[in-house]
């Protein structure tokens, strides 16, 4: 008996899953056509691996199964591929992504291929056992289940974000009551007061407080904010570098930037939607189990 239908449906569902996961969001990565092309191509390979492995198992073709396991190992390379390409771009960014953000993006990209394999294998299994309809149902279930598992938590779930006023006490720049930095040039102080905006991040839990303490998390916030609002800065004006500074007694964080688009509410929105990075997440909630 042929396995054409199950392989075909598995391949189709897997590729569809990759296309859905490829949608670019507001963080604008990746939106370049070559990124799409290479990820679609790899997505087809991943879908094929998933789709063919199930009929191979059913036919007790152990050589084929072993071979597909070896192929699946190749997808581990995706993570280093994404990491390398993003790291290469870091030097020329006015506001860097930071190592934590890059690692998080790279990990997401790797995980997406395993989801494609799982979806394709589920669809193929369903088709083998109960026909095309069951294949589609199992494929959709596998996609929905795994997509919800890798869904990233946005910052607003654990952190309250409020717009805040910038002010100077002498040369000291403050966002509300949080000291940001010392600005020595009168001209820069005037520019900051005129064009700058600020926000205060108030952690709702101890875990969120520790998340905000992570430098990588704060750099990700600044990178997203600078990407969306634009930034009035060049290499010779380091005093306009966006900053996220911690208020040590309370764990609150003051964010300062000089954007092209002076919209404090938009800044708040962007910060609220920044993902909580896996590597930055606070672990104080495990204190109870000690």
């Amino acid at each position, binding site marked *: 008996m042929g396995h054409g239908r199950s392989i075909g449906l598995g391949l189709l569902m897997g590729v569809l899953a990759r296309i859905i996961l490829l949608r670019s969001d507001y963080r604008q990565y990746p939106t370049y056509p070559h990124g799409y092309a290479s990820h679609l191509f790899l997505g087809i390979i991943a879908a094929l691996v998933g789709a063919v492995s199930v009929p191979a198992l059913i036919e007790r073709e152990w050589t084929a199964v072993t071979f597909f396991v070896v192929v699946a190992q190749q997808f581990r390379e995706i993570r280093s591929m994404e990491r390398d390409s993003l790291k290469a771009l870091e030097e020329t960014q006015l506001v860097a992504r*930071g190592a934590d953000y890059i690692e998080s993006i790279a990990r997401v990209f790797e995980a997406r291929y395993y989801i494609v394999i799982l979806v394709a294998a589920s669809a193929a299994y369903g088709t083998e056992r109960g026909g095309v309809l069951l294949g589609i149902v199992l494929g959709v279930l596998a996609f929905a289940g795994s997509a919800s598992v890798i869904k990233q938590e946005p910052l607003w779930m654990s952190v309250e974000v409020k717009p805040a006023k910038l002010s100077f006490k*002498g*040369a000291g720049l403050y966002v509300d009551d949080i000291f940001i930095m010392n*600005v*020595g*040039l009168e001209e820069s102080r005037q520019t900051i007061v005129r064009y700058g905006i600020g926000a205060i991040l108030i952690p709702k839990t101890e875990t969120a407080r520790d998340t905000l303490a992570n430098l990588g998390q704060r750099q990700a916030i600044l990178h997203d904010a600078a990407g969306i609002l634009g930034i009035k800065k060049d290499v010779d004006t*380091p005093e306009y570098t966006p900053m996220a500074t911690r208020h040590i007694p309370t764990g609150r964080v003051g964010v300062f930037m000089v954007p092209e688009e002076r919209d404090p509410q938009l800044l708040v929105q962007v910060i609220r939607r920044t993902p909580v990075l896996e590597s930055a997440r606070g672990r104080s909630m495990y204190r109870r189990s000690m």
Partner: protein
Amino acid sequence: MEVTFSGIILCAVTDDGAKIQAIPAFVVRDEAARQEKARLLSRILKGAVHDLGDGVLIVVRH
């Protein structure tokens, strides 16, 4: 990473040369002229200007 502890003092602009030792210092008595000198040095050296008070500005590469 932009958030860092490391910084190099590239030079200072001051109203009195005796306040600065071991780094290049530009002595400018007038407050407005000191600001202008510091601004030029900051743009040329790509460093940030910080005000230590008491007539001392430093240019720092972060």
